[in-house]
C-alpha cells in the first residue's frame, strides 16, 4: 500500500517534469527574455471590450522613450518615497493614493491633449493602469500605460533620477 503510494508520487513527478519540460521547450525564448529583463509586456486582458476609450493603451519601452523625447509626460503612480528613491528621468510624481488632492494642481499644469504615460512597479502592480483610467476620467485625451514600469526601465539601463537606495 505504502509502496504503491510512493510509486504513484514518483510517476506524478515524472508527469509534471515532462509537462514542464515540454512547456519550457516551446516557450524558452519568452522565459529567457523575462529573466534577462528584455520583456514583452503581457497584454492586460481588456474586460470591457465595448468601452476601449476609457482604458489606457499599453505601450512598450521604446514608445516611452519616443514620447518622452517628443514632449509627452511620464507620470509615476508609486508612493512619494519610492519616487524619491528612483524614477524614470523626466517623470513627475502623481501617487495614486494622493490622486484626489493632487489632481487640481496637475490639471493646472498639464494640458488635456498632452500625451501621458503612466507607470509603477512593473507587471504585478495595477496602480499605473488605475491611474491611467482616472486620468482619462479627468479629461485627458491620450493616456497610455507602460506596464514594465520602473524595474524594466532601470534594468534596461535607461536614464533614471533619484537618490538611490
Amino acid at each position, binding site marked *: 500500500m505504502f509502496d504503491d503510494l510512493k510509486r*504513484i*508520487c514518483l*510517476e*506524478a513527478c*515524472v*508527469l*509534471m517534469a*515532462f*509537462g*514542464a519540460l*515540454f*512547456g*519550457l521547450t*516551446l*516557450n524558452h525564448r*519568452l*522565459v529567457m*527574455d*523575462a*529573466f534577462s*529583463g528584455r*520583456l*514583452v509586456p*503581457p*497584454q*492586460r*486582458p*481588456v*474586460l470591457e*471590450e465595448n468601452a476601449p476609450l476609457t482604458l489606457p493603451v499599453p505601450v512598450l519601452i521604446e514608445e516611452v522613450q519616443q514620447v518622452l523625447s517628443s514632449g509627452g509626460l511620464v507620470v509615476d503612480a508609486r508612493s512619494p518615497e519610492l519616487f524619491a528613491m528612483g524614477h524614470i528621468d523626466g517623470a513627475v510624481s502623481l501617487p495614486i493614493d494622493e490622486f484626489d488632492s493632487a489632481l487640481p494642481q496637475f490639471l493646472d499644469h498639464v494640458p488635456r491633449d498632452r500625451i501621458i504615460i503612466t507607470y509603477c512597479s*512593473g*507587471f*504585478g*502592480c*495595477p496602480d499605473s493602469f488605475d491611474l491611467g483610467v482616472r486620468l482619462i476620467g479627468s479629461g485627458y485625451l491620450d493616456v497610455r500605460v507602460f506596464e514594465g514600469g520602473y*524595474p524594466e526601465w532601470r534594468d534596461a539601463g535607461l536614464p533614471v533620477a533619484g537618490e538611490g537606495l
Partner: protein
Amino acid sequence: MIRMQPVLYHLARLILAMVFVYAGAVKMQDVVAFAGHVAAYQILPYAANYLVASTLPYVEFLAGVMLLLNLRVRPALMTVGAMTVVFMVALVSVLLRGLEIDCGCFNPGGGQETTAGVALLRDIALLVLIIVAWWLRSRITALDSGRGTRNVESHR
C-alpha cells in the same frame, strides 16, 4: 452500488480530463496573457510569472490527456490534485488581500470574468471529484488484483 462504481469512476475521470485538457489548451494559446493573469495575483516575483505561465498549462494538458486515455490515472489525479490545492491557496490569498482580479483559470483572452470566490468554489468541486475518482480507481485496482489471484488459484 458495486456495479455503479465503474460507471461513476469513468464519469469522474472523463469530466476531470475534459476540464484540464480544456484549461491547458486554452492557456497554451496565449502564454503571455496568462503570465499577465499570474502577475495579477501579486504572489510571484516579476519574471517567475513567465516561468509558471510557460509550464503550468502543459502540465494541466498532459495530466488531462492521461486521464482521458485512462493511463497512469492515479499519478495524473495526484498531479491535478496538487495543482488544484495550489490554486486554492492562491485564491484564498487573493480573497484575504481583497484583490479584485480575474482568476485566469480558463480564459486568458478576456471574455467573462470569474471572481476569486467563484473560482474557489469550483476548485473545491474539482477536488471532491479528484478524491472520488482516486478512491474508485483504488477500489477497482484492488478488486482486479483480487480476482487475478483467485483465477490463478483455481487454475492450479
